[in-house]
């Protein structure tokens, strides 16, 4: 062992100085590079995605969170709305809060593929449901929610999901408990029809729930919560709470 060390020392002494310096510099740079990478990687993403059927109020919610008012109204979105900003209600607060990157993905069925672009970076997903006009759209909403809950990018990264019942300022809006039960029932039915025989589930990469039991959101691998809000009047406190929970400052 000592002989070996001695031999190495001699060999090192014999190299020209510049080469030694160069080798050392390269080594330092590489180590620094890896150190920086490691520092940067666990930076948690700050993206929150707003998804839901067309007409459920996502764009209104987006502008409410950003500016505090939905301005002059909205029409069906043809493109996603993206923005990185501080929540409007937190503008006045002191202290360093991380700006959130909010994405509002159009709900029209023809634009569904756009959702897949944003999901891999999402820290949380808000699924907006129209509490006013819920029953006619229950099936479509459940199908969309089912598709989202079974996507690999959501399940593997355990993205948290908030089911938001929007338009609760109106008198005839349904309660969140009712909506939750209806969605669970519909998703249960979807489970049976989609998982019927094929072991290779075509579109959905994961299966939901426990076979044999009725589906409930608590069986999902990622956290699913449900809340109320009203985009038009500005009652978005529960939404902001959810956002702050998942975008850590």
């Amino acid at each position: 062992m000592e002989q070996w060390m001695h031999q190495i020392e001699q060999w090192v002494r014999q190299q020209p100085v510049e080469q030694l310096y160069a080798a050392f510099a390269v080594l330092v740079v590489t180590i620094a590079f890896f150190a920086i990478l490691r520092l940067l990687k666990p930076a948690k993403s700050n993206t929150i995605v707003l998804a839901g059927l067309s007409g459920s109020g996502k764009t209104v919610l987006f502008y409410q969170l950003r500016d505090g008012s939905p301005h002059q109204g909205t029409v069906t979105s043809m493109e996603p709305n993206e923005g990185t900003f501080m929540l409007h209600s937190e503008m006045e607060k002191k202290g360093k809060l991380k700006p959130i990157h909010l994405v509002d993905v159009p709900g029209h069925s023809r634009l569904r593929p756009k959702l897949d672009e944003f999901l891999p970076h999402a820290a949380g997903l808000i699924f907006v449901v129209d509490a006013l006009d819920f029953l006619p759209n229950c099936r479509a909403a459940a199908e969309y929610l089912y598709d989202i809950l079974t996507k690999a990018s959501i399940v593997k990264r355990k993205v948290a999901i908030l089911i938001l019942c929007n338009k609760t300022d109106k008198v005839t809006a349904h309660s969140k408990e009712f909506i939750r039960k209806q969605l669970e029932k519909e998703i249960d039915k979807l489970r049976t029809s989609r998982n019927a025989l094929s072991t290779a589930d075509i579109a959905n990469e994961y299966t939901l729930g426990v076979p044999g039991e009725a589906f409930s959101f608590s069986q999902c691998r990622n956290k699913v919560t449900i809340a109320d809000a009203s985009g038009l009047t500005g009652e978005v406190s529960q939404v902001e709470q959810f956002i702050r929970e998942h975008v850590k400052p």
Partner: protein
Amino acid sequence: MLEQLLIFTRGGLILWTYRELGNALKGSPVDALIRSCLLEERSAETSFSYDAPAGGATYTLKWAFHNDLGLVFVAVYQRILHLLYVDELLAAVRREFSHIYDPKRTAYDEFDEIFRQLQKEAEARAEEMRKSKQSNRAPPVAGKKQGPGQRAGSQGNGKKKGVKVGSGKDDGDGESGKGRGLSNGSSNGQENGIEESSRVPSVVVKGNENGTPEVGAFDVNKLQKLRPKGGKKSDAGGGGGKASKAEPKKILKKNRVWDDSPSKSRLDFTDPGDEKGDNIVDVVAADQGESMMDKEEIVSSESESEEDEEVESAKPGTKKKGWFSSMFRSIAGNAVLLRSDLTPALKALKDRLMTKNVAEEIAEKLCESVAASLEGKKLGSFTRVSSTVQTAMEEALLRILTPKRSIDILRDVHAAKEQGKPYVIVFVGVNGVGKSTNLAKVAYWLLQHNVSVMMAACDTFRSGAVEQLRTHARRLQIPIFEKGYEKDPAIVAREAIQEACRNSSDVVLVDTAGRMQDNEPLMRALSKLINLNNPDLVLFVGEALVGNDAVDQLSKFNQKLADLSTVPNARLIDGILLTKFDTIDDKVGAALSMVYISGAPVMFVGCGQSYTDLKKLNVKSIVKTLLK
């Protein structure tokens, strides 16, 4: 008068509305416009008409894009008014607004003043035009294109007439007001002759949903109908003749092998002593494994960067100069896309689509729509025009082929089961596309998902149709409802559904006779079948080999079903079943043509002649193949 003028971003936020007219619009015309026109890649059309659902007013909508800033300008007005200055006004508004637009601002109150001024100017100009024409007393009815993509020229008289006319006013239209560069002098001479014969020409604008104009002394639609229907078939006699599903008559005939796959052992499924079909031989149920509907499709991802180069090299001559200048501009990154830049790239794309068997009309409309969405956009740095166009086209194709309603049939079947009624699917189509074959495949797939199926043989015309279905039913061991030949298919279908209720089958698959879309009595019979039985799903079966005829087939089918329907909400084609997909290698354009023209999603794809050859449409792979 204008009801409303809206400016909104493509993301959906309304930036400015014309606020003086306080009356709210009935219904939601702008949403309807976005959903049924702009998102369907029909943005090259000139106008859109909307009927408020609760029997309110009917509106016409016109729009303009500012692609660079991502803004949309929409003008709404009552349909009975034929305002002539709207296009001009939209263009002027777009110009002015782009000066004051700022992505951070959301309120533009000062635009009210500017708008009022622009409106006054536009109205004044229209008035002037009208007065000058009145004094001329020979209104130039121009025969020129109203806008990109209008195909009015295909009407019976080969002249293109300009768009709508002032209702009740006796002068002609105000096309000149639109500033589209028409030549008044030259057309004047010709028009005088026409003017005598047709007092107030009014034309069906291609974009109009219900095409009959109220004030129309000259209805071009009627002219089309009067045209002799000699076309393809004269009467029902055209129905037969296509070979029935082959059971080779002599055993000496060798089975034809299409590709290198090992031939199936026997194709003759007839049971001995089966002429009258009375002996119910106990045949083992056909079990050929899992239907391909349930198998995951493995899509190979290939890089397509080489294809771009081919397109470039295909153009001779002036291409080099164009390439250099476009390269410089793309590096500089400030080029604004003009029509002239887009035209060559779009032409190349259109040709490519047409070589993939997309109908010519559809390819044209698509290219126009993509052009409308790209014009005025700034090129990003280091991007070529062709790649921008390619990306835009890819997005557009993806959007069209993505279904806008759920295609989960099993879910619908379960829903119907809960309500205690059978789920009825009717297969319609022209002769020889594969309705009976694919009906059997769908039955096989449903059986694999534990759904009880019943067939109804409503093809009472073609010899062997009932036997064919009977054979399939026997192999699949499912009940079949048949009444033989020469019976009224609508009645047979009704009785079949009643029988299904009685023996609680979940699904009824109704086979109909093939018919050409021009055959009036047969289309009427089909319409009667659908009206009488109100099926849950009307599936149009189309073969992937069809070319430009796909457009004609689907539009005529839809039109006849709409016209001859007895209820206000006519049942139209709900879905498409694409057959013979294995016979086309990569010429998959028929799928695009059919989906574009009808708006219905492709629910199944038939890709072979055995029971398992039924797949779902893989949108991404089709788009990739189309643009390769």
